């Protein structure tokens, strides 16, 4: 059997109620599904939240994950984003401390190339804001690690939405 283990994406509409996030994440831990990232925020309706979920799984497990999510009363809709064109971005803050003027200009060069926003600065530190796709953020983190002595990264997890031209 071809296991075909890869990253997959799901968008989930859920009731905006106390405990729903815990129940959704609890499903993943309880059934040993490999949850990679989960973000949640409200929608245009106060009573509905939307989650973006990244899992690593094979085909069969992924089918099961979607079914299990569907059986939850609090889950309103499950959208499989794996085969869908989508926009996906992730907020990431990168702090590069302890740098001199020369290193600072290196930071700004990188910011320019990657379309990052320098959003805070002091004598020896620069803070960048990235809203790239998560895999681009991965690359960026690698580059920053190679280039600078020390960095601090805060990642927000991916938020995905279907493209308008999917039909």
């Amino acid at each position: 059997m071809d296991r075909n283990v890869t990253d997959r994406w799901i968008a989930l509409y859920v009731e905006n109620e106390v405990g729903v996030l815990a129940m959704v994440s609890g499903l993943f831990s309880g059934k040993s599904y490999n949850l990679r990232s989960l973000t949640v925020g409200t929608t245009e309706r106060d009573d509905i939240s939307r989650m973006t979920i990244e899992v690593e799984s094979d085909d069969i497990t992924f089918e099961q994950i979607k079914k299990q999510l569907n059986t939850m009363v609090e889950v309103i809709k499950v959208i499989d984003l794996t085969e869908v064109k989508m926009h996906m971005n992730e907020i990431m803050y990168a702090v590069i401390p302890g740098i001199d003027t020369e290193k600072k200009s290196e930071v700004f060069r990188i910011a320019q190339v990657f379309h990052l926003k320098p959003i805070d600065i002091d004598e020896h530190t620069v803070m960048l804001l990235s809203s790239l796709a998560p895999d681009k953020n991965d690359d960026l983190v690698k580059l920053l690690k190679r280039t600078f002595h020390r960095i601090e990264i805060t990642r927000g997890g991916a938020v995905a939405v279907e493209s308008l031209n999917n039909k």
Partner: protein
Amino acid sequence: MDITGRKLFVRALQEEGVDTLFAYPGGMINELTDELYKADSIRVVLGRHEQGVVHEAEGYSRETGRTGVVLVTSGPGATNTITAIADAHYDSIPLVVFTGQVPQNLIGNDAFQEVDIVGMTHSVVKYGVTVRNRDDLGRIIKMAFFIASTGRPGPVLIDIPKDIQIQSGSSEYPDTVDIRGYKPISGVHIGQLKKAYKLLSQAERPMILAGGGINIGHANEALTEFVHKMGLPVVTTIMGRGAIPTDDPYFIGNLGLHGSFASNKAVSECDVLFSIGTRFNDRITGDLNEFAPHAKIIHVDIDTSSISRNVVVDVPVVSDAITALVKMMEWAKPLKIQSWIEEINNLKSEYPLEMKKKKETLCPETIIDGINTCFKEATVVTDVGQHQMWTSQFLAMRKGTKLITSGGLGTMGFGLPAAIGAKIADPDRCVICITGDGGMQMNMQEMATAVTNNAAVIICIFNNQYLGMVRQQQQLFYGKRYEITCLRRRTGCSPDCKGPSDACPPYVPDYVKWADSYGVSAVRVESEEAIIPTFEQAEKVTKAKKIPFLIEFMISSDELVLPMVKNGSPISDMIL
């Protein structure tokens, strides 16, 4: 006009037609029980432990097909229910469990008897929620009953903080609910069902596998008729036993780790396996890679998430059992599979399902045969262990027989309270509890519930002085090292005991004396001749006195449940 939450609670139960509530009191439900005091239409049964209370509600539900309803207090009252809620979850039993909760301003404070019961149970309920607004109370109770009983049934837990119980709000109890995240399946995809039928009708070696879904969905007669129309052999899971009568010529036997030789072999040889209402639990399949290796698999189930979960299915059909069977009946034509049927019958006679009788001791099969002889119509409720497997092997399932057992979770302590619940639901029916000497002790406090509620169950303890099911594993696979399975063992026994001898200490408790302390008659049976007369006496006494009757059957410690598939082996590989 506004009413209090406690009033709406009772009103909701009445609107739902609840006639029996299984309950145990405590501080956070005093408001609710006080309101129940005034409601004469609801019988409130006081159990003796919350686990027992929930098992009683399960028994009530399995006997009637209706939703079992439970009320317990917060904290320890709530946590005591968890095992039984999980049991209901795995066996798809509709329950609505109400737990009291500390007032909302104390939630999160580690207040006295505060626990996050909704968080603790979320993986073993179909739905669970804390009522946070008085105005949601009616809608949430309506949702609970709807969700518990529709689709694949299951337990729902509603946690009601004390402030909600007291607060005034709308008196309205809705007639219907629309839940955007819950749409139970109705109907069936005809195209898919046709595909399934076509595959089945072209089979040369077809087999039907019937699970508990047939019993839950009351599809027994539809299945029997369908099977006869096409001439198909049937195997069942333990939860599916009785899907067709066990004396039906097309019934082959149980499938699985203690399945019959013929069933396990035939499933391993079949070319189309038509399964309905089962989730292919590991007790059924054995080694998954070797399960029905030559078969295309059709799977009909109401629960989408049960399909293609454990085995890869060729034709999935999402449907209620009865809907699918009734539809297929229109197409059904007899199959020409005579040689296959003969082959199966040969397997049956090669290794018929039977126990070897020992000279000196009572044979479990003979005891169950006694039940078959004495009780034409009965509900038999088992506990978990060897006695359960023997019952599932030898109990004759006729139209009037019902078997209630804990299949998915295998909860020791289920038997006695579930039997009590069944009897309370249906006092005129004969209810027999078959339990082990170990499992009996897990909820034996419920004897008081039985006595005080006129639940005249016939309790049969199969006393083999051991936790037999585990002992069997030790006997066969662990060099007879009977660690923590002997119920007679005491401080001072030899550290490397290899089994019973004359020097063994006496068994405790003495069940006959114990029963006597409840005013319950009890008989210890040690000979075959006593079996039938004792059952006759039990039937007479329970009818006349409306209290339980206890029979302790003394059986040998080393009886085995056979055939048996070793854990992880293919089901065709049996110890006979």
